[in-house]
Each structure stands twice: as C-alpha cells, then as structure tokens.
C-alpha cells in the first residue's frame, strides 16, 4: 500500500503573520514548521502502511527554507519527501496548488492520498477536493475514522447532523480532521534517520501543468475595531459581575 500525504510548511502560528508590501502575500520565513493539521495525515498514513508494509511519501509545495517542517514529517516515520519549489508559484491560489500537487502525485504509483481538511495559514479548504478531481478519483472528506481494505477505503465523514459512513474504490483522496488519530512524537532515532531520507525537489518544468487563472488581492484595510470593555481581577466575587451582565443583557 503506497500512501501519499500532502503536507505544508507554514510560518509558526504563534508568531504574528505579516504580509509583503505590494503583493499582499504572506511573508514566509526560512524557518517554517509542519502545519499541525498535517501531523494527523502523516500519522494516518503511517498507521495504514504499518500492518502490511508499503511506503508513505509526503508531498509539499512551497519554498523549502530550512526544510524543518518536511523533516518533521520524515522524523515521524514517512519514507521520503517530494518538494515542489518554484519562484513562479509564489502567491498560488488553491487551484494552482492542486494542479501542481496532483501532477507531482501523478508521477508515482499510489493507492491513497491523504490531506488535512484545510491549512492553518491559507484555509481555502478546497485543495484536497481539487486534487481528487484532477486525478479523477473520489474525495472522501472530513474523515474522523479511516479504514482501508484490499481495494477499497471506508471513512466516517463528518456531517452537520453527525457522520456518514462513506466508501469508495482505490485510489482515492481522503481528507482527515484533527483527532482522526493521535499523532506520534518523533523519536531521537526518527530525527536522526530523517536527515538521511531522500527529498526530491521538482520545479514547474518537471510537471507539465500550468497555473490557474489569476486571483488578485485588490486591497487590505483595517477591520472596524472592537474595543475592550471592563477588565476585573477575580477577588472571589467576579462571578457576580458576570451574572449582573447576563441579567442586563436579558439572557437570564
């Protein structure tokens, strides 16, 4: 069973994000981390290949920088990485990203593609579905549970009311929610091994695909600010202030 996991290196969400003057693109520092949501995808992939063998390949698009985020996925146990890095891809929208990632995936034999439901820095939330459409395979999305059989995959798909059980043949794309599995922490051995694992670097010229029609950021303005109200220290009676406010708002 060969699993491809789509991952993304993102600026640490704990640091303030900044936009580049002129283009309004997100500034990506050299040191980027593995998007937390992708740890679930990597873990899922590892768990699916462990029983009967196979490979887990992580695929990522974006500036390599220090490569720390990709090494994180390799340190968890992924076998190898494919990185598409090309300055012409700066500011890519979801469809361009999907075309590029799908083209990189299409160069390999694969049974299953796993992705998070949306990235933490861009959150367009449509890239896995687009990849599936381009590859001509099903997109089983928002999975809270994933099981793979000989030539089929079955998931619990989150819905507004609860969940559906959804199945399809392979190959397929599955997008996983946080909590689908418990991601492992890299071991010391994993971190050392990751340094020796292969990272294949591709550019647009290797892929035979093209950018989607352009999307532009026309302007950015400050949102109307919401101002802070009263701040009190709890001296043991702070709950009374809350009760008073709820009563004033007529909700109790």
């Amino acid at each position, binding site marked *: 069973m060969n699993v491809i996991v789509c991952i993304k290196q993102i600026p640490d969400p704990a640091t303030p994000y900044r936009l580049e003057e002129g283009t309004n693109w997100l500034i990506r520092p050299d040191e980027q981390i593995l998007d937390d949501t992708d740890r679930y995808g990597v873990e899922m992939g590892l768990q699916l290949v462990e029983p009967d063998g196979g490979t887990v390949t992580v695929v990522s698009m974006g500036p390599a920088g220090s490569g720390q985020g990709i090494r994180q996925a390799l340190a968890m146990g992924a076998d190898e990485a494919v990185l598409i890095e090309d300055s012409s891809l700066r500011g890519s929208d979801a469809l361009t990203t999907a075309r590029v990632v799908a083209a990189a995936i299409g160069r390999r034999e694969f049974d299953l593609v796993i992705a998070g439901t949306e990235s933490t820095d861009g*959150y367009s939330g*449509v890239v896995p579905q687009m990849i599936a459409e381009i590859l001509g395979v099903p997109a089983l999305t928002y999975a809270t549970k994933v099981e793979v059989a000989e030539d089929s995959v079955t998931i619990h798909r989150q819905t507004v009311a609860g969940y559906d059980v959804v199945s399809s043949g392979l190959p397929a794309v599955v997008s996983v929610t946080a909590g689908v599995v418990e991601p492992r922490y890299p071991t010391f051995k994993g971190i050392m091994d990751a340094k020796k694992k292969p990272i294949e670097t591709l550019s647009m010229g290797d892929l035979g695909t093209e950018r989607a029609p352009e999307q532009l950021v026309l302007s950015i303005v400050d949102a109307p600010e919401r101002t802070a109200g009263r701040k009190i220290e709890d001296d043991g009676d702070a709950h009374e202030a809350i*009760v008073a406010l709820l009563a004033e708002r007529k909700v109790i």
Partner: protein
Amino acid sequence: MAAVWVFVEQEGDRPSSLGLELLAKGRELGDVTAVLLGPGSDDIYTTLGDHGAKAVLRVDGGDRLPSGPVAAALADRARTDSPDLVLLGQAYNDRDIAGRLAARLGVGVLSNASDVRLTGGGVETDHEILGGSQIATASASQGPYIVLARPKSFVAEEVGGGAPAVEELDLPDIGAAEGRITETHVEEREGPQLGEASIVVSGGRGLGSADAYELVERLGKQLKAATGATRAIVDAGWVPYAKQVGQTGKTVKPEVYIACGISGAMQHLVGMKDSKTIVAINKDADAPIFSIADLGVVGDVHKVLPKLIEALESR
C-alpha cells in the same frame, strides 16, 4: 441582470439556513437559480421562491457521495448557461462541490468570503484575515466566479417571490471517482446548536484538562446555551470537531459569548468576534481575548466557573 447560482442544501424537510442566507445575497446581485441538493418538496420550492429564487435546479444523488456527480453535472450545465457567479457556503458539501467544479471548469475558488460584489463583469470578495483584524478584498480574473461565503455573513429574507420553475438535473456516471454513502448517523445532541444558540459557552486550553470541560457543559446547561471549543482542545482530543469555533470551525454570532480559559488565538477570534456581548475568563491578564471582551475576568476558570454555576442555580 447577472445570472447567479446559489447552492442550497436540504436539511431534513427544509432548506438549510445557510442556503437561505446565500439566497438573500444572490438576489441582491442578479437573477437567482437555486441549486438544491436533496430530494426536494413543494414546500421547499415555495420557500426557495419566497427567498428570491426564480428557478430551481434540483440535484439528488441518493446514496452517491454528491461532490463528484454534482460537480460534473453543474460543470456541463455551466458551459451552456454561463452563470456569472456560483455562490456556495463554507460548509462540507459546498466546499467539496466547489472544489471539484472549479477544477473541472479551470477557474479558482474565492474561499471564506464575508461579502461578494459583482462589478461590471468582474467580481470582488471581502475576506477577514489575520484573525479578523484586517479585511482583504480579492478578485478573480476569469468566470464563472465560484465563491464560498462564511455562514452568518448575510441575513436570510423572505421577499415573497412566485413559485420557481423546478428542473431536475441528471447526474452523470463518473466511473472511478464515485463514492457511496452506506450509512447515515445522527448524533444525539442535547440543547441548542452552535450556529443558532443565543448564548454560547466555549472552553480552551486554560481549562487544563479534558475533564474540566465538564464545567463548560454545566454552565451551558444552566444557561440553555450551546457549548463550543477552541481548535487547540479539539486537536488535543478533549472534545469533538463539531464543537470547534473559529476560522476552521463554526462561526457564531450569539447575544452572549462566554470564553472560558481561551487566550484568543487569531484562528478562534474570527469565529466569534461578532458576538454581541463577549465575556472572557482567563488567568493571563495579557491574553488577546481581553482586547475584544466587554467583560474580562482575570482569574482561574476552576474557581470562577463553579461559583458562577452555583449563583445561576440559586436564581
């Protein structure tokens, strides 16, 4: 008039509230065709007409996973009807259909929009970015423009239109891309839903442990509120994904939002900052949540919440 397609999903025997919100915006922008996902009914068509739909394209795949076949059928139809705008919501099936439809048509998706305008052949969408502190206006160079709008961006409105013309769209065979829904589970849920409750009580990392979420649930029950959570504690597995409020979760705009042990990460603020009144309880006096709270309590949730629950019980 611009031709606007608005995606509306059927929930039970009614159109979803998100769909009705989108119809209000669609009607403002042009002639609306509602794309209804579901078995449909005369009552539903009447409601869609009342909310401004002039025509209905019904798509219903039964137990087929809708995204593949619906996107294929809509792509074919879009090539002949050439809608200027396809408006969907930031919701599960909407996202799946938008993504596949966009890839088929070779155009992008403008995601997470809080507003959309058609401007003499072009499109402009607003997006709250960086935790809602700034608003970016974006545009796409090629139509049909496919836009995903965040729930609660628009207000549903009955305008009393006539009965719409209803047409059923055949869903094509999509071969290997097909998925099947084999079971549907409705989870038992107590109390009001996150998107509709007038009070929301949410918990974050400051609760310290999964067990402490019980305090949030008890307060919620006392206030007949819906209970929510930050992404951090959803990721930590303390509560299910369905409770997540924020950029990658639900958007809520209740009368009162009570944030318990929530620091106020950008990802969370986007989902709740438009609540009418915000109460925050957090140990860290410098937590960003206090900058938007109407009442900020610097204190330990484990001390404040039990007293608050007790005080409410004795009222």
